[in-house]
């Protein structure tokens, strides 16, 4: 038997790697592009990827009961999967590229030694998918936690790029210390130009999950794609009727088992009848490494048996049980007090939908946090209840809402934050400012300050000053200008809290009450007919 690998499939494998690199590069470019570029309106950035994601399209549609027109692009992905199989996972998905590359690196360094035949169950991702879909029926949007675009964007926005920015700052300090001023300066200008945010609550946790997901590739190749990814599972279910079916030429096959051992997604190429078309991502590895060029993917238009698409034995009982689990899980997410009363710290970005709709649409991708020029948008932990983990909230102590900026509303992939022009945005209240007279310098210490008044961006100012008498420790009385808030004018932007010199617990601070989007969390009554 002549031993010669297939040139065609070796070439296809190179093309596949090139395609992954290109899409990952596109993803990175769009991701970095989601910031203040010098234009008030930045157009479409990385959210375009999300619109091709059929899982997000379906879950958002079901959970929020809203049609979001841009998700029409996901039909392209569905059509491509129906015809060609899971090429999306193998050739397009940028998170897939991350896992593939790290698996490759782990293999080359011998951290990962694939078994001859992997027996681990591939069913988990289908169960995850069923739970996500069942939850969506009751309005719970869990897709964002494991959807590949959400996962990657969030990890990059909240953890990887902040880490990179931190590292660059360290490098910059090193350059300055060595007297390489020009090099240090170019780093500082890059950080300023790209507005790379460096500080995130939850940054460690989000990064931990991301690096954990990458590290799992040292155990099983493309661990995420095989066992966890609900989007992959969804596409797998659509992969019955595709026209590219693996075929092994029995005459050439020497039964070496390399194809099954090195299959990235445990699709089991050998023997031919055990091949799982729903798991195959057309990475072309098996066909390229086959020592006798026995493997090919000829066009064949007969559907696979449902049991054969992934061989995970999705029995009716298991499907019913996991559906039931997904449904009964929902009440447990709703036991939180945030269902009854708004959390005072839950200051949502301007344009955010009312809370129940917001939670049903937000996919926790963190794009808004990437785009925020002041670093003020942060992932929530407990403030919005368990289904609101990693949804965005403004933390004015870290960064405030820039008055003439509406970037967060422009980058949201699902419309959980509705697109706003800057004029529209400035009519929205996201919260209300309060003065803590026990800590405010003029009130409590009799010292001049009114930094908050200076920074209040609305005109006329929502922070006015009045002259107040304050007692000094020696008993003398002084008169100082002290801030008072006009809540009719306050937008809740939080710059007062951010710039307050009482840094640890600012003497002027914003809470969510009075936010335009909520009917429950309101404050000043506008009685109908009464002039303002």
């Amino acid at each position, binding site marked *: 038997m002549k031993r010669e690998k297939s040139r065609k499939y070796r070439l296809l494998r190179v093309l596949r790697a090139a395609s992954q690199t290109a899409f990952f590069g596109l993803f990175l470019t769009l991701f970095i592009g989601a910031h*203040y570029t*010098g234009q008030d309106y930045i157009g479409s950035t990385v959210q375009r990827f999300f619109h091709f994601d059929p899982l997000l399209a379906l879950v958002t549609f079901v959970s929020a009961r809203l049609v979001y027109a841009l998700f029409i692009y996901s039909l392209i992905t569905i059509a491509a999967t129906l015809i060609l199989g899971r090429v999306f996972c193998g050739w397009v998905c940028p998170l897939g590229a991350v896992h593939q590359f790290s698996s490759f690196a782990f293999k080359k360094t011998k951290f990962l030694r694939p078994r001859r035949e992997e027996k681990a169950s591939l069913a988990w991702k289908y169960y995850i998918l069923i739970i996500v879909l069942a939850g969506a029926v009751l309005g719970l949007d869990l897709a964002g936690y494991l959807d590949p675009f959400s996962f990657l964007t969030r990890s990059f926005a909240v953890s990887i790029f902040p880490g990179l920015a931190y590292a660059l*700052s360290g490098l*910059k*300090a090193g350059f*300055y210390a060595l007297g390489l001023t020009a090099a*240090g*300066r170019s780093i*500082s*200008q890059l950080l*300023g*130009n790209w*507005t790379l945010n460096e500080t995130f609550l939850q940054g460690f946790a989000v990064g931990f999950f991301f690096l954990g997901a990458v590290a799992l590739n040292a155990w099983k190749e493309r661990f995420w794609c095989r066992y966890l990814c609900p989007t992959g599972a969804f596409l797998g279910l659509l992969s019955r009727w595709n026209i590219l079916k693996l075929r092994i030429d029995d005459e050439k096959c020497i039964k070496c088992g390399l194809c099954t051992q090195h299959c990235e997604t445990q699709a089991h190429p050998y023997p031919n009848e055990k091949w799982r078309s729903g798991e195959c991502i057309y990475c072309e590895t098996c066909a390229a490494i086959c020592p006798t060029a026995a493997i090919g993917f000829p066009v064949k238009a007969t559907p696979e048996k449902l049991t054969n698409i992934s061989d995970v034995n999705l029995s009716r009982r298991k499907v019913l049980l996991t559906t039931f689990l997904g449904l009964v899980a929902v009440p447990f997410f709703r036991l939180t007090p945030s269902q009854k009363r708004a959390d005072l710290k839950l200051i949502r970005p301007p344009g955010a939908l009312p809370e129940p709709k917001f939670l049903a649409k937000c996919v926790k991708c963190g794009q808004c946090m990437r785009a925020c*020029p*002041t670093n003020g948008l942060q992932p929530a932990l407990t403030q919005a209840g368990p289904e609101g983990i990693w949804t965005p909230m403004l933390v004015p102590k870290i960064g405030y809402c*820039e*008055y*003439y*900026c509406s970037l967060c509303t422009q980058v949201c992939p699902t419309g959980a934050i509705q697109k706003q022009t800057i004029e529209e945005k400035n009519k929205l209240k996201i919260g209300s400012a309060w003065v803590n007279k026990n800590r405010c*310098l003029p009130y409590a210490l009799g*010292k*001049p*300050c*009114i*930094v908050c*008044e*200076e*920074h209040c*961006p*609305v*005109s*006329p*100012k929502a922070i006015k*000053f009045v002259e107040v008498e304050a007692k000094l420790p020696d008993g003398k009385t002084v008169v100082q*200008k002290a801030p008072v808030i006009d809540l009719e004018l306050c937008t809740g932007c939080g710059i007062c809290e951010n*710039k*307050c*010199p009482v*840094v640890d617990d600012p003497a002027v601070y914003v809470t969510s009450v009075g936010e335009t989007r909520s009917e429950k969390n309101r404050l000043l009554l506008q009685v109908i007919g009464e002039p303002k």
Partner: protein
Amino acid sequence: MNRRDFLRDLAVGGAVLNWAPRVLAGQAAAPGKGPDLAAVEGESPYLITKEAVAALGGMKRFVGKGDKIIIKPNVGWDRTPEMAACTNPDVVKALVELAHEAGAKKVTVIDNTTNQAKRCYVRSGILDAARAAGADMPYVDETRVKKTALKGEWLKEWDILIDVLEADKIINVPIAKHHSLCRLTMGMKNWLGALGGARNQLHQNLDRAMVDLAAYFKPSLTVLDAYRILVRNGPQGGRVSDTKLVKTVVAGIDPVAVDSMGATFFDIRPQELLYLRLAQERGLGKFELEKVRVEKRKI
């Protein structure tokens, strides 16, 4: 206030407000290198800036060949020029060009902004203007500061931007604006943008901080942009109706006199401003404009 002061103020205020060049022309014609103060009124911020510097004797009086120049405008806020929260970009552009023409080796425009830096740099129009004129305009790097002994009466030391410290000459280019705490912010207040650190703490004794800073920073030239001034809701305004067109640029070598003339645009007598009185006491300049050689022009 005694009667003599009153009459003096009346004379100065009247002279300035009514644009009576003859009152001051005699002083302007006095011999010497040139006047201490030039105020030029006109339609184009760019042209009146150039004219004001020319009236002082030209940029060569302030910038030497091969100098590293810092131009310090007010770019504090994310506001477009018609809001009069930041220095007019054409004023900055004119000065960058003049500095280059006078032989400056490198011109850097910089300000430690209050709102997000890139937004302020871009939307004020100053980044484009400065770059078009060939200046460098880097974002402030909060780590590139040096704790510097100011030897002030209140401020003993503070972080100052190294870019500013390394310059041979500084040109201060403030805009004239209303400010709630110190009433008006002009040249002396503009130095807060050359600092790092927690500048908001300086509000606890702002007038004295301004005087200490003005005593430390010795600008070769101060050019006050009063083309469009901010008369209320300062120091950032937010509506065009908060501004007033004065269409004047004041250039001078005496920073106290420049601010004093700026005050007159708001109908405020200079001696009403505590920091100007303190600055004169400290010998930083004169707020009594009649003691200053002023040249006024209208183009």
